[in-house]
C-alpha cells in the first residue's frame, strides 16, 4: 500500500514536464507521485551567509534574499572585527600607529606602512633617500606578488578546487614571507617603514635572495597558469559572472585590479607617480569584460608586470642611507595642517588622511580602506546570480576583514 501523498495547497495542481515548463494538457500526477506546487515564485528565502562561513574570508556576513536559487537582494553586514582603529590612531603618537597599520590588511603590511608613511611625509614635508625609495618599491611589489598569488589561490579554492592551487600559492607566499622575516623580523606584521625612509637596511645577501626569488617566480606563474588559466571548468565557472560596468566602477570608487578589470586605465603608480615609479618601465593590464575571469586574469598579468618592476629596482638600487639620521621619530610633532596620501596597494587605493593640530598625536587619523569601498558594488555584481556564484564574486573582490572593519 502506497503512503498517502501529501496534500498540495494548490487546489488544482498542474503537472510539470522535466524541463520545468508548465504542461496543463498532461493528466494530473497519479497517487504515487508527490504533487508539485504550481510555483515557488511567491516565496523569497532570506539566508544569512556568515559571519562564520568559509567563503567569506573572515567574519563577514551577507544577508541574501533568494528567489529559488537566484539572488534578488544582498546586503553586506560588517563590523564583527571593528575595533575603531581610527580612534586608536588619535590616541597614540604618529609613530605608534605604524605597527598598527600592519593589522589593517594583514596580508600586505608593507604597502599599508608605505601609505601611512607617505601621508605623514606629505603632512610634515619630509623627503626620502633614494635607496629607501627603491627598497619601498621592492617590498611593495613583493607584497603585490604575495597578495595576488594568495588571491588566485583563494579564488580557485572558492570555486571548489579543494586546496591544491591554494597550497601551490601558499608555497610561493611563504618564500616571500621568508624574505620579509629576514628583513624586518616578522613574517606578516612587518612594521618596516618609517617617516622619511625605512627602519633597517637590506644587506647584499638579502638583495641577492630577492633576485633569486624574482627570477624563479616567472616559472611558478607559468606552472600555475598552465594548471588554471586555460582550464575549461575554471573558464566556464568564472567567465560572464559578476560583470562590473566601467561607469559603475568609477562612480562607486572601485580601485585597484577590480577597476582595471573593467577596462578603466587608472593606476596610481602611473597617475600619481609617487615614489620612484616614474623611473620604472611597466605596463598596466586592462580587462575587456569586467567579469570574474578578467579580475583573475588581471592579477596574473599584474604579477608579471611586478616581476618586471622588481628586476629593474633590484638592478638599480643605489648604495646610501635608508633613513635620514636627522629625522626625528620620537617627539615627532608635525605643524598644523592636513594631508591625504595614497598609494596603489594590491587591493586598490589605500590612503591615509591625517589632520594635525601641532600635538604629538594626530587630531584625525583616517584610513581609506580599498576593500571596504570595493564592497559597495557587491550587491550589483551578485544580483541575478546563484549563491555559488556570489561566493566566487566575493572571492574576486579580494577583501580582508581587518581592513573592512578596522
Amino acid at each position: 500500500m502506497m503512503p498517502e501523498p501529501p496534500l498540495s495547497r494548490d487546489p488544482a495542481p498542474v503537472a510539470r514536464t522535466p524541463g520545468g515548463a508548465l504542461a496543463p494538457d498532461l493528466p494530473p500526477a497519479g497517487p504515487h507521485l508527490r504533487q508539485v506546487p504550481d510555483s515557488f515564485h511567491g516565496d523569497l528565502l532570506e539566508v544569512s551567509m556568515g559571519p562564520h562561513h568559509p567563503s567569506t574570508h573572515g567574519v563577514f556576513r551577507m544577508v541574501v534574499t533568494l528567489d529559488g536559487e537566484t539572488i534578488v537582494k544582498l546586503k553586506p553586514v560588517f563590523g564583527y572585527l571593528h575595533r575603531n582603529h581610527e580612534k586608536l590612531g588619535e590616541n597614540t603618537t604618529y609613530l605608534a600607529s605604524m605597527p598598527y597599520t600592519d593589522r589593517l590588511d594583514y596580508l600586505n603590511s608593507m604597502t599599508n606602512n608605505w601609505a601611512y608613511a607617505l601621508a605623514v611625509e606629505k603632512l610634515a614635508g619630509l623627503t626620502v633617500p633614494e635607496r629607501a625609495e627603491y627598497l619601498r618599491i621592492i617590498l611593495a611589489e613583493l607584497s603585490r606578488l604575495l597578495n595576488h598569488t594568495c588571491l588566485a589561490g583563494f579564488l580557485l579554492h572558492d570555486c571548489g578546487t579543494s586546496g591544491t592551487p591554494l597550497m601551490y600559492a601558499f608555497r610561493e607566499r611563504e618564500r616571500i614571507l621568508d624574505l620579509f622575516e629576514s628583513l624586518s623580523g616578522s613574517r606578516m606584521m612587518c612594521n618596516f617603514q618609517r617617516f622619511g625612509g625605512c627602519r633597517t637596511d637590506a644587506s647584499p645577501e638579502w638583495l641577492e635572495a630577492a633576485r633569486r626569488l624574482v627570477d624563479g617566480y616567472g616559472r611558478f606563474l607559468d606552472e600555475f597558469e598552465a594548471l588554471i588559466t586555460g582550464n575549461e571548468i575554471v573558464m566556464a565557472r568564472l567567465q560572464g559572472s559578476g560583470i562590473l560596468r566601467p561607469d559603475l566602477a568609477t562612480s562607486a570608487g572601485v580601485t585597484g585590479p577590480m577597476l582595471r578589470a573593467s577596462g578603466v586605465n587608472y593606476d596610481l603608480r602611473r597617475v600619481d607617480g609617487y615614489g620612484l615609479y616614474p623611473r620604472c618601465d611597466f605596463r598596466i593590464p586592462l580587462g575587456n569584460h569586467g567579469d570574474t575571469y578578467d579580475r583573475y586574469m588581471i592579477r596574473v598579468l599584474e604579477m608579471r608586470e611586478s616581476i618586471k618592476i622588481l628586476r629593474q629596482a633590484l638592478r638599480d638600487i643605489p648604495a646610501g642611507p635608508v633613513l635620514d639620521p636627522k629625522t626625528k621619530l620620537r617627539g615627532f610633532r608635525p605643524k598644523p595642517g592636513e594631508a591625504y596620501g595614497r598609494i596603489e596597494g594590491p587591493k586598490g587605493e589605500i590612503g591615509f588622511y591625517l589632520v594635525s593640530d601641532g600635538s604629538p598625536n594626530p587630531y584625525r587619523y583616517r584610513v581609506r580602506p580599498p576593500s571596504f569601498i570595493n564592497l559597495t558594488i557587491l550587491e550589483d555584481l551578485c544580483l541575478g546570480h546563484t549563491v555559488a556564484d556570489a561566493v566566487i564574486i566575493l572571492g574576486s573582490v579580494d577583501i580582508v576583514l581587518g581592513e573592512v572593519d578596522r
Partner: protein
Amino acid sequence: METPEQIRDRLLARFPDATVTVVANPGPAAQHSLLVDPARAVEIATFLRDDPALRLDFCSNVTGLDWPEREVVETIRKTVPLSPATGAADASPASPAVESATPIVEEKVKRLQPGYLEVVYHLYSMALKHGPVILRLRTGNRTDQVSLPSLTPVWRSCEFQEREVFDLFGVAFRGHPDLRRILMWDEFRDHPMRKDYAEPDDYEWEPTPHETVLAKARAHYSSPAPDAPAAQSP
C-alpha cells in the same frame, strides 16, 4: 588642474546664491579645500562631476571631523587714538620714534567658538587623471542641526562611507538611500569617533598592574570585586 580659487570663482559664477570659500591648509601638503554651502551641495557636486574641465568622477575618500566647542583666546592689538591735546600735527608716520609713542594696547579676548561636525570629500578625476579637489560640508552644531545632504546620488562610493560617518560621528545624511549603522551594531547609541565620547562603564576585573585600569576598576565596583585584592578596592 585649476586651483581651488579658480574652482571657487567658477562655482560662484554658476551658483551666485551659494557660499563657497577656500579653506587654506597651512601645512606643507598645501591641499586646500572648498567649504561649500550645504543647501546647494548636491548641485555643486553634480557640477563638479559633470564639468568638462574638471570631470571629478571619482570620490575617493569621505570622512568626518569633529570640532567641539572650544574657547579661543585671541590677542587683539589696539591702537589708542591720540587725543588732540598731544597734537597729531607734528607726528610724521615714517618716524619710528613717534610710532612707538603711539600707545598700543594688547587685549586678550576670550571667544567661544561654536562646535560643528565636518564631512570631507576627496575628489579625483579618473577620466582626466587629476586631483584632489577637497570638498567640506559643515553642520550647524553638534547636537540638533547635524543634518547634511548626502552626495551618494552623485557618487556611489559615498554610500558606505557616509554610513560610516553617520555611525561614528552622527551626521545624518538627507537623501541617503540606506542610512543605517555600518560598523557598530544597530542598538548602539553613541557615536564613538566624537571627541567627547565616553567609554561605557563595562569594566570587568582582571589582575593588572596598570594604574589607569585599576582606577577604572575602583570607579566601577562599589563593593570589592570578587577576585580583587582588598588593597585595590575603595
